[in-house]
């Protein structure tokens, strides 16, 4: 049953992603991407990563994509009219390159290059403690420095966004 769920969700994810890149209208593109992200959240739940799933919805679907929609509407780009195509000859090679990239990645996935080490956080252990609690613990002890650095990153990004977008400060 879980397998079916995976296949269904994966199909939705891929379909919406493909729609995104062929969709003329950016608003619809954004909506497709939202759907992709929500489907990914479902996949995260299947992978026992509840916290990541929730954050995926809140941050990606709820905040970042709203920002995208907001900008699209602000610039009123509703008609996806692409006036000038300077590189019409790049379309076919690009798609071929994409396929080549996919093939290579699949080869890497099948190869012995990807080796992992089993860690201590088994499903049973995680469920005993609680996924959120574990992440919180790790984030505020072992990974405190990167966590703080991301906060600085966000701070700087906020300043940068204001600097860029404001006409006059």
């Amino acid at each position: 049953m879980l397998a079916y769920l995976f296949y269904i969700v994966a199909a939705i994810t891929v379909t919406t992603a493909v729609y995104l890149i062929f969709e003329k209208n950016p608003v619809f593109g954004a909506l497709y991407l939202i759907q992709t992200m929500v489907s990914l959240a479902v996949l995260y739940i299947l992978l026992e990563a509840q916290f990541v799933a929730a954050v995926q919805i809140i941050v990606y679907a709820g905040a970042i994509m709203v920002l995208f929609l907001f900008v699209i509407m602000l610039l009123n780009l509703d008609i996806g009219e692409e006036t000038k195509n300077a590189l019409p000859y790049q379309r076919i090679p690009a798609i071929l390159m994409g396929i080549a990239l996919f093939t290579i990645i699949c080869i890497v996935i099948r190869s012995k290059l990807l080796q992992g080490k089993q860690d201590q956080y088994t499903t049973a252990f995680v469920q005993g403690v609680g996924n959120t609690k574990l992440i919180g613990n790790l984030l505020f002890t072992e990974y405190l420095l990167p966590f703080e650095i991301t906060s600085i990153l966000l701070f700087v990004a906020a300043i940068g966004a204001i600097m860029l977008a404001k006409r006059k400060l």
Partner: protein
Amino acid sequence: MLRSKNAADWGNVSEMNKEFLVYLVIVCVKILLVFGVVQLMVISMIWLERKIMAHMQVRLGPMRVGPHGLLQPIADGIKLLFKEDIIPEKASKLLFVLAPAMAMVPAMLTFAVIPFGDAVKILGYKVDLVITDVNIGFLYIFGVSSLGIYGIVMAGWASNNKYSLLGGIRSSAQMISYELTLGLSLIGVVMMTESLSLVDVVNAQAKLWNIILQPIGFFIYFTSAIAEVNRCPFDLPEAESELVAGYHTEYSSMKFAMFFMAEYANMITVSAIAVTFFLGGWQGPFLPPVVWFLLKLSGCLFFFIWIRSTFPRLRYDQLMHFGWKFLLPLSLFNILITGLVIVIKG
């Protein structure tokens, strides 16, 4: 994800025994019950609001249909149902149709994790009076409510009307801004409870309501909630006088009714969250828990109506300044204080 029943077990068909079937039935019943009650409340809210506001403004309100206009919502509903369903020619049809549903669904979904009563025994089965107790209920609420914005934004854009679009843009900016303070105001409660489950939050308030310990948090939450559901005095996205009703200008008939209902449903949702997080949930003496819950909920809803009839609408820049320059620092301050107290108390 589910505490009572592990999600991973679903995959094993052979283990789908009787117990699971019973569980399924109970959940379905609970869903239907909650959905029905909420719809009923929405309908009665429409009547109540008109009546209460009328009395506050020293008039009578609806009096014609039924005693004291009691059947007015039903009359309104029938009227809307039979009106012509207009879809503007240049509108984006799919989104235009989808938008009201998108507004309605998240409002209802939130109820899935709100506990409305203590556990009771029915026919030998222990039944929690909550549709499902998720251990990340807090995150769930925010995940779902952050999606609620899309209904309004899509409606505003799909209508292909500049007023609607302005309403949509306004609401997206407003809701992003206030969602931040909304979330931060509840962090204090979560820090004290040390759990993200709403059942735990309610249980932790058996002795003392959180509104006593977190008055600032409650104030911030309620203010942000009003903005989040686009109620007066923060109803900029649908300001009749400047935007000709904003994002639902082009809507008519049942679609309009759904927006209308979504707004009230959202109101009930945020009130229910307020009750759960700050007002002790279903906790209370003498009366049955469910009754206590409904009573507190009604009190909150009355507060909404009260504010609507007393406060004037803010200007848009005032709204933004209030959110970013006052509420956000205040909520951060609140978290800081809460953290300090927790650390000092050990």
